[in-house]
């Protein structure tokens, strides 16, 4: 957006990123196990949120299918178990989600607005109940146990997923395809009439977003150690990403990242400290965010900054 700062960013940001990455790689060596576990949970939420934003952010197609792809990833871990190396299982989790999303995308992305949203919502429930029926009647189990992996391994894999996701998001955003995706959100009919292959672009982006969600699911299963269809396909995981993204601010690459980080930190600490008030607080934050922070934390920051510095960028918010 801001052409003048690009040159400056080109040198500053990579240096900053390298520093951050080094810092994160060092974390398992220098902190307590609790911190690693907490960070892993936060990474999971960030990854789900960024994956969701990859597709739904620019296109404006609100997907509630996150729980479906996440659950598939979880189940991949439960099915493969110890039979393959963890990394292979994780990649399989990503691929199965990619394939499902590709098929779903091909048949549903002509649905617009609320219809797309409720379709994706229904998808989670459909898979949940099919899985439940299959596990009980065909396999003869209610849930599955997943072999545990050690904390540092989980942490590093999540870190790698997150890094890949950030890079993908960054390159997509700065590429012509990222612009094309935003144009779909702006005016899909105009987009298709200037030569953009809207259908393919939507399907591939949707499937890529599902790929990262699947990866995250498989690695998280090793932390949870037990899964069943109700745990794996919990619609909660469909609603969290849009909420966290909006909480941070959708207009900016860092908005969803920040939103997910702050929100999930709050969540993890709230759950342990106030297990009973947690849901109430969660609901309140959700309501307040949607009503009073339409541009999220980033938007809030910008308004505050404008108050003090003056309205130089007054026409950039919309």
């Amino acid at each position, binding site marked *: 957006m801001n052409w003048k700062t690009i040159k400056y960013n080109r040198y500053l940001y990579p240096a900053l990123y390298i520093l951050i990455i080094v810092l994160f790689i060092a974390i398992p060596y220098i902190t307590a196990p609790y911190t690693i576990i907490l960070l892993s949970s936060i990474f999971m939420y960030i990854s789900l949120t960024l994956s969701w934003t990859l597709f739904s952010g620019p296109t*404006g197609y*609100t997907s509630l299918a996150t729980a479906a792809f996440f659950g598939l990833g979880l189940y991949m871990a439960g099915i493969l178990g110890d039979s393959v190396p963890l990394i292979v299982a994780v990649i399989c989790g990503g691929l199965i989600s990619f394939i499902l999303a590709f098929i779903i995308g091909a*048949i*549903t992305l002509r*649905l617009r*607005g*609320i*219809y797309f*949203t*409720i*379709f994706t*919502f*229904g*998808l989670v*429930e*459909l898979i949940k*109940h*099919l899985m*439940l*029926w299959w596990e*009980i*009647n065909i396999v003869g189990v209610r849930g599955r146990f997943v072999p545990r992996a050690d904390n540092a391994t989980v942490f590093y894999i999540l870190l790698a997923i997150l890094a890949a996701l950030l890079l993908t998001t960054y390159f997509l955003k700065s590429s012509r395809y990222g612009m094309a995706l935003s144009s779909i959100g702006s005016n899909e009919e105009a987009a298709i009439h200037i030569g953009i292959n809207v259908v393919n672009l939507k399907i591939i982006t949707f499937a890529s977003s599902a790929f990262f969600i699947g990866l995250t699911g498989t690695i998280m299963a090793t932390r949870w150690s037990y899964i069943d269809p109700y745990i794996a396909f919990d*619609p909660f995981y469909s*609603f969290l990403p*849009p*909420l966290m993204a*909006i909480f941070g601010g959708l207009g900016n690459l860092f908005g969803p990242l920040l939103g997910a980080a702050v929100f999930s930190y709050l969540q993890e600490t709230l759950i342990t400290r106030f297990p*009973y*008030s947690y*849901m*109430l607080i*969660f*609901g*309140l*934050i*959700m*309501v307040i965010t*949607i*009503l009073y922070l*339409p541009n999220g934390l980033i938007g809030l920051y910008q308004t505050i900054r404008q108050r003090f510095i003056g309205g130089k960028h007054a026409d950039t918010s919309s």
Partner: protein
Amino acid sequence: MTSIINILVNGLILGGIYALTSVGLSMQYGVARIFNIAHGEFIMVGAFITWMLYTSFGINPLLCLVVAGPVLFILGFIVHRYLFKTLKDKTPVPTAFEGNSMLLAFGILFIIQSLGIYLWGTQIKGYSFMAYSIYLGGIRFSANRMLILFFAVFLCVLFYLFLTRTRPGKAIRAAAQDPEAASLMGVDINKMLALCFALGAMMAGFAGVLLSMAYQLQTNMGLPYTIIAIIVVVLGGLGSIPGSMLGGFILGIIGSIVNTIDPGLTLAAYYLLFMILLLVRPSGILGR
């Protein structure tokens, strides 16, 4: 033969409940454009109010209709007046409002449910009321379920008559069809939308009261009912009230058939039907 009648009657009972749980949601979406994911929480509140009144004071559950209805109406009115209206003022773009109102409703779901947990805990609750069998033509039916069917149909018809025959009902329908024209005619749109949301909540409350007579209650019971209501509403055509009633009965009968084949597949069958419908005919059976 008896088994076919049995399947049919069970389907109708199920359908009556589905219809009643859906009409409110359908109207809230059709008129106020709110996709109310928290709909089931209003059902839960209605059900627990009845449970409380019956187990603590021995008040007849049917009498609870006149208690729970107004309570839920007021609750719905407040929720719209202070939350959805605020959102609407801030989100003038209709599609953005639809998306955000769904997320807002999800937040409300959490708030109501957690307040429910404070009040009623997380245990499964229930009471028995008219828990005996009656025989019609040699076939056994449970009395309370027949009562539920009767009242569900009765309330749906009443609701429909209200919308089509009374002045406020007609105003609501006018507002749904053409908000601008309606506001030019002197209809206070905001009041109309709040009224409509409140009515939807009241219908949910009624459904809760009836449900509590024969089914188990739990503070997290809302979402499954919401999901079924969504399916029914899409089946009947988003925003079409008669469509929702018809859709409720169709789904109930399908459910009852699948249930005799393999109960574990009932919900999966609903979703399959729902998704195929969305793809083939998103406007539903009675949609435009």
